[in-house]
């Protein structure tokens, strides 16, 4: 196919770079500088999709972000598919592949279209709320059918080959929009020395200047723009970002910019480049110069391909050198749209008529139309379009000056294009993202930005300003003011260039063109094209009582499309207002929310996915664990060795071996991941007393103590051992997963409740490597590695710690035990961790030193009845429930966190759930963790549950299974039997016992 609609000269395309692309499987030609939409129009492609609900053929309406119809599926491969690409914003590149998103077997001949035609009148807004209910059982089936019709494009089925970047920026002045006002603002702000970012969603900066008919300082406006851009490019303090949409404006002048770096080049970013980048910008001041969107008029069959916005006609002709038809009828309520007819005529094609809804239009543009010999039909409107796959003609009728009645007679005009303009809606979106509501202005016939909490100025068409000279002036002024407000005092003012422009006359406030039939009976008059919302639909909604504009939106789906109603919302609000006899400001707008235009999820995520989703933390000995075949468990951010299987072993066999080694010989655990917090200051001791439930006043230097931490509610949330290094210096250990939370907790209390206390916290988790050497041979082994620490039983007592060297490295050694065996916890600076660990193994070989992981640690401690916070506790367990009254002190002068909570009536109740041991009747059966206990396994559902299994293992040392669990009133039920019904219907019987299964007197750790 040839580019029939391409003019032989003009436009901003590069004719020396022809490009080939594929649409719906067919190849077409375009040029560098085209968008997909302009290239399709150049090739005479009328239908770019089928509508969502009625499956009507649809063509390109607009030339920018407001386009509702030309929504395509793009991508040459499965992995590079992008759904819902707006053809008016996608630049053409060689080899681009795209297709329509709806329509079967094709958008030209679509089967659903027939259904839409036949069923259309039975699908009013919200029809699905009124039907598909009976019989109840059928809803599943109905829903499947409804869902089939859903969606526009499709998700890729393969993983994205591209990468996305984030960048943080801090600027003095952030300017959004690179049209006349934005460029002017950038120019004046830049002169102050302020750091400026100017972002614009389009490929080229310049906005409407790129196709403007006005001249500036005697030259075409586009030349002025080029010169300003060149000046800005030369400024070090200015960053120009084309192809960059400011998609969200958040509190505290935080804005996000979605920059498309390579989407205009290739299907997939060149290797090493990011496809898109999110700029996270913190701006001192913001200038919004986002312009305005032209409103189409709402009239019968206004969705037939060939119906367009007047400004889009101009844009396609002037920028892309494409005339999208042969014979134009222009309908307008205002002066600005006349330009479309002038451009059309200049391109050598025929303007059938300009239909002006105003009874007596007059002034510069009308004079010019007359001068050009164009026919102007005043006081009239296009009330209906003829044609289905392309406009074939229009019906024109005189209308009354209220704009709500077609007076006739109805005349027919033959044409293939209908351009319409109902005036301009300022692009207030960003100005509303932080909660400000826009304000209606009758003179603008539109909403302009309301008061904002943000440090924000606005300039140009966003303010409803129409004249180019005023837009420039507002731009210069805003740029200057923003720079001054941002703290720059020398801001040279710039003299305003001379603009040669037409005088703009008053527009008519008209949104919905009356038909000779009532709206409910006239052919469909579309308000929101993408969601197929019609004027009649809006009237039905208000008639049914959906009167709030939010109800109208939600009931009809108006504004729910990917264009978020940029084209249709104001018209819809006007129609809703009229049908309720209200004004538009009384009806109000729905809320504008980010994103301004859709943003790739990948770009929002940036590099933080896959491997980099969360940082991985490794201990210093990680490489050793890998070499020695460890399997790992995720605990918090850490990768902890879970167990160390040897060739041919089952998991249970590995655990049995590891446990036996710890109980009978010597075994070693990498405990580096436990949180370590260094606490210093003269009030450190008192602080510990308030944070922990037990007493700290008397803990001597050189001693360690176990502590429990509770929330205000009195429920246990972390635990660990704290050592006293000096009277004002302690090291606290926390659980691996809880470390960050505990540090925050300490800081929270210090900073908000007890700021008067002199105490400092510092995480030292990463600074120390910790290895727990456990088992009857641990003393023997360790003594080979240290010369300066006396490890003898009397010199180094249980719960003591000593400083010295281990393998020649300075170390802190703690004699504490989580296994119940004689145990030494060796802490060395992390940089020496691996070295010391390897030394321990060198000496350990003769003792058959065995590494063990978290699973064996869990078994060993469970044999001793030691809890794991977060496994044996949830947010509902007090220290008393754990049988750990010994760890709660009621003698403290100040009190402690959780005291009041755990002393509330319900927490002191007798029959609370309590932590007990459980022995299965059959010793080889391990109760699955999470099993729920009942007293009577035959009770019908819902059963009375007594508690659940928190920890459960096979203990090789005891030759049987062991479990810990919560049981209601468990302390009083020792020896009783409870039952654990399993999903497969079986029931496991267990006896309640002490949770200390091994060495109840604690003798083993004292050998």
């Amino acid at each position, binding site marked *: 196919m040839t580019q029939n609609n391409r003019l032989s000269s003009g436009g901003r395309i590069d004719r020396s770079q022809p490009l080939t692309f594929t649409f719906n499987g067919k190849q077409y030609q375009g040029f560098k500088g085209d968008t997909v939409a302009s290239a399709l129009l150049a090739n005479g492609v009328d239908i770019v999709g089928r509508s969502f609900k009625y499956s009507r053929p649809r063509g390109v309406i607009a030339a920018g972000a407001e386009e509702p119809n030309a929504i395509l599926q793009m991508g040459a491969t499965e992995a590079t598919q992008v759904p819902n690409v707006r053809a008016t914003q996608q630049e053409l590149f060689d080899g681009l592949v795209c297709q329509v998103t709806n329509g079967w077997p094709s958008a030209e001949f679509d089967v659903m279209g027939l259904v839409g035609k036949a069923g259309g009148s039975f699908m009013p807004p919200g029809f699905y709320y009124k039907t598909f209910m009976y019989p109840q059982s059928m809803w599943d089936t109905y829903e499947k059918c409804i869902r089939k019709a859903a969606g526009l494009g499709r998700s890729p089925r393969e993983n994205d080959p591209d990468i996305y970047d984030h960048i943080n920026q801090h600027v003095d002045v952030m300017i959004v929009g690179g049209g006349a006002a934005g460029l002017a603002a950038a120019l004046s702000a830049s002169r102050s020395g302020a750091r400026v970012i100017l972002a614009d969603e389009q490929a080229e900066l310049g906005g409407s200047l790129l196709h403007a008919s006005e001249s500036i300082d005697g030259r075409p406006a586009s030349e002025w723009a080029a010169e300003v851009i060149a000046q800005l490019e030369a400024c070090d303090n200015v960053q120009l970002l084309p192809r960059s949409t400011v998609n969200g404006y958040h509190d505290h002048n935080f804005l996000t910019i979605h920059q498309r770096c390579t989407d205009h080049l290739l299907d997939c970013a060149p290797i090493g480049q990011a496809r898109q980048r999110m700029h996270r910008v913190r701006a001192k001041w913001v200038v919004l110069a986002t312009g305005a969107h032209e409103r189409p008029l709402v009239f019968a069959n206004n969705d037939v391909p060939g119906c367009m916005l007047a400004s889009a006609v101009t844009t396609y002709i002037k920028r892309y050198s494409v005339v999208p038809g042969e014979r134009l009828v222009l309908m307008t309520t205002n002066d600005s749209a006349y330009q479309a007819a002038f451009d059309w005529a200049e391109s050598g094609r025929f303007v059938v008529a300009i239909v002006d809804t105003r009874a007596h239009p007059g002034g510069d543009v009308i004079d010019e139309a007359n001068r050009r010999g164009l026919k102007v039909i005043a006081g009239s409107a296009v009330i209906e379009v003829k044609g289905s796959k392309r406009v074939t003609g229009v019906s024109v009728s005189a209308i009354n000056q209220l704009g709500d009645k077609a007076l006739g007679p109805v005349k027919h005009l033959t044409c293939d294009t209908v351009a319409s303009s109902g005036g301009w809606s300022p692009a207030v979106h960003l100005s509303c993202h932080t909660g400000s509501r826009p304000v209606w202005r009758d003179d603008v016939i539109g909403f302009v930005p309301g008061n904002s909490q943000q440090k924000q100025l606005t300039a140009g068409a966003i303010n409803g300003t129409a004249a180019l000279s005023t837009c420039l002036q507002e731009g210069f002024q805003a740029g200057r003011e923003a720079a001054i407000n941002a703290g720059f005092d020398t801001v040279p003012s710039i003299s305003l260039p001379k603009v040669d422009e037409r005088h703009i006359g008053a527009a008519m406030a008209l949104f919905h063109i009356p038909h000779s039939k009532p709206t409910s009976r006239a052919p469909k008059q579309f308000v929101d094209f993408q969601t197929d919302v019609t004027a009649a639909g809006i009237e039905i909604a208000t008639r049914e009582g959906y009167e709030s504009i939010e109800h109208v939106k939600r009931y009809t789906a108006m504004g729910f499309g990917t264009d978020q109603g940029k084209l249709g919302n104001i018209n819809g609000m006007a129609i809703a207002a009229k049908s309720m006899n209200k004004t538009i400001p009384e009806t109000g707008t729905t809320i504008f929310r*980010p994103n301004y235009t859709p943003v790739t999820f990948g770009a929002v995520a940036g590099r933080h996915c896959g491997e980099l*989703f969360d940082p991985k933390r490794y201990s210093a000995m990680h490489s050793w664990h890998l070499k020695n075949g460890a399997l790992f468990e995720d605990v918090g951010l850490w990768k902890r060795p879970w167990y160390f299987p040897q060739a041919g072993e089952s998991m249970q066999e590995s655990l049995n071996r590891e446990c036996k080694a710890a109980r009978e010989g010597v075994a070693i655990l990498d405990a580096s991941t436990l949180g370590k917090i260094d606490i210093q200051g003269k009030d450190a001791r008192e602080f510990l007393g308030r944070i922990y439930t037990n007493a700290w006043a008397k803990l001597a230097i050189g001693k360690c103590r176990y502590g429990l931490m509770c929330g205000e509610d009195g429920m246990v949330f972390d635990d660990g051992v704290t050592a006293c290094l000096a009277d004002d210096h302690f090291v606290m250990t926390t659980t691996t997963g809880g470390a960050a939370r505990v540090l925050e907790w300490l800081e929270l209390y210090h900073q908000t409740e007890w700021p008067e206390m002199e105490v400092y916290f510092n995480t030292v988790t990463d600074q120390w490597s910790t290895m727990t050497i456990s088992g009857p041979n641990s003393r023997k082994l360790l003594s080979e590695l240290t010369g300066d620490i006396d490890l003898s039983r009397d010199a180094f007592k249980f719960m003591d710690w000593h400083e010295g060297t281990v393998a020649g490295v300075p170390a802190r050694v703690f004699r504490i035990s989580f296994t119940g065996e004689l145990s030494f916890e060796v802490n060395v600076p992390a940089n020496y961790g691996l070295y010391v660990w390897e030394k321990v193994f060198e000496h350990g070989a003769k003792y058959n030193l065995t590494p063990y992981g978290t699973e064996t640690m869990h078994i060993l401690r469970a044999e001793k009845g030691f809890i794991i916070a977060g496994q044996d506790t949830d947010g509902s367990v007090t220290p008393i429930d754990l049988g750990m009254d010994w760890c709660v002190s009621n003698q403290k002068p100040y009190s402690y966190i959780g005291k009041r909570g755990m002393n509330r009536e319900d927490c002191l109740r007798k029959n609370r759930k309590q932590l007990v041991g459980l022995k299965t009747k059959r010793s080889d059966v391990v109760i699955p963790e*999470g099993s729920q206990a009942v007293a009577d396994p035959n009770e019908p559902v819902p059963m009375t549950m007594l508690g659940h299994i928190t920890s459960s293992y096979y203990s090789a040392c005891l030759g049987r299974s062991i479990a810990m669990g919560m049981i209601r009133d468990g302390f009083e039920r020792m020896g009783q039997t409870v039952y654990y019904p399993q999903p497969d219907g079986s029931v496991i019987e267990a006896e309640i016992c002490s949770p200390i299964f091994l060495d109840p007197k604690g003798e083993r750790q004292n050998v």
Partner: protein
Amino acid sequence: MNKYSGFGLLKHGLSYHENWQRAWRNPKPKAKYDVVIVGGGGHGLATAYYLAKVHGVTNIAVVEKGYLGGGNTARNTTIVRSNYLWDESAHLYEHAMKLWEGLSQDLNYNVMFSQRGVLNLGHTLQDMRDIQRRVNANRLNGIDGEVLDTQQVQEIVPIMDCSANTRYPVLGASWQPRAGVARHDAVAWGYARAADALGVDLIQQCEVDDIITEDGAAVAVHTKQHGLIKADRIGCVVAGNSSVLAKMAGFSLPLESHPLQALVSEPIKPILDTVVMSNHVHGYVSQSDKGDLVIGAGIDGYNGYGQRGSYSTIEHTVQAIIELFPIFSRVRMNRQWGGIVDTCPDACPIISDTPVENLFFNCGWGTGGFKATPGSGHVFAATLAKGEAHELAKPFSMFRFNDGSLIDEHGAAGVAH
């Protein structure tokens, strides 16, 4: 009330839809009602409906400061499930679930309750222990549920990355087949229409700015637009604004109001037909009947009434979704928004009498009250009708924070919803 049906649609179609009845009236408030319900969200409207229908109390007004269902009801991600951990909450949410199952027919309004199943993923051994525990409890409470392994999860959601290569591989999930999603607006509108038909006055654009008490008993609400409205009993169902209303009545509630955000993709062709939630990577997603991926996560950390949140939360949420579904990376996010949720220290609601006589509160649903809408309305209606808590509501008294009988659902409530 004209009954809605497929036949009705045909009939109205032939008369150009010019004769549809209003779904509800727009009445002026009377001087006095038996019960005034403050807050026209799903819970308030459901309360009114069940008061009228079950208890025959029809002299009721629902006063709503904005538009019906415009609070969190209009903003939530509509996940409905009942697989809560503790008996008290499981019974309450399951009560709601049973009502959901016949709701469209009961209201004669299609609320599109879609029982497409909900997966709660586990990524750590502790996640899996918690899942086992919760599903076992659910089973013994008569609530459907299963623990799935990685392979079974993959079969239900073939497009999810269940490989071992992810940062936190999926180890399994809990699966509640009866759970799903519903159309939030339809729930509010369906209840509104049905309540209106029973004589309930729904008064929109009517903001309560004071609660009038006499001798320790509430006697009226004062409204900005219509002055005093008297009532024998007052029920406040105002979600994120509950603390504000409590303050008017002179007491405080153990609630924090936080922004909770959600977002949707552009509509895409059906690709995900169940709900996937993960507490660990912190995000959840389902696909609406319109084709949008509906995505959410946890609350923003700070307090506020702004109905918008911070961008970093959106980033984390999207990262979580891409982590689970790398294929969505090129799909695009259309819109984000926020609501204000009223969170309780134990992640459970408050359905309760208060220190003020004749004044009752239903709040604290936090991030997950949509699923409870029918049940919440049903038990609160009984509470208001009788002046004392419904059996299922009893454990949810606000006074539990005094005596410590908390119901800690942080695990099951998790990320949210």
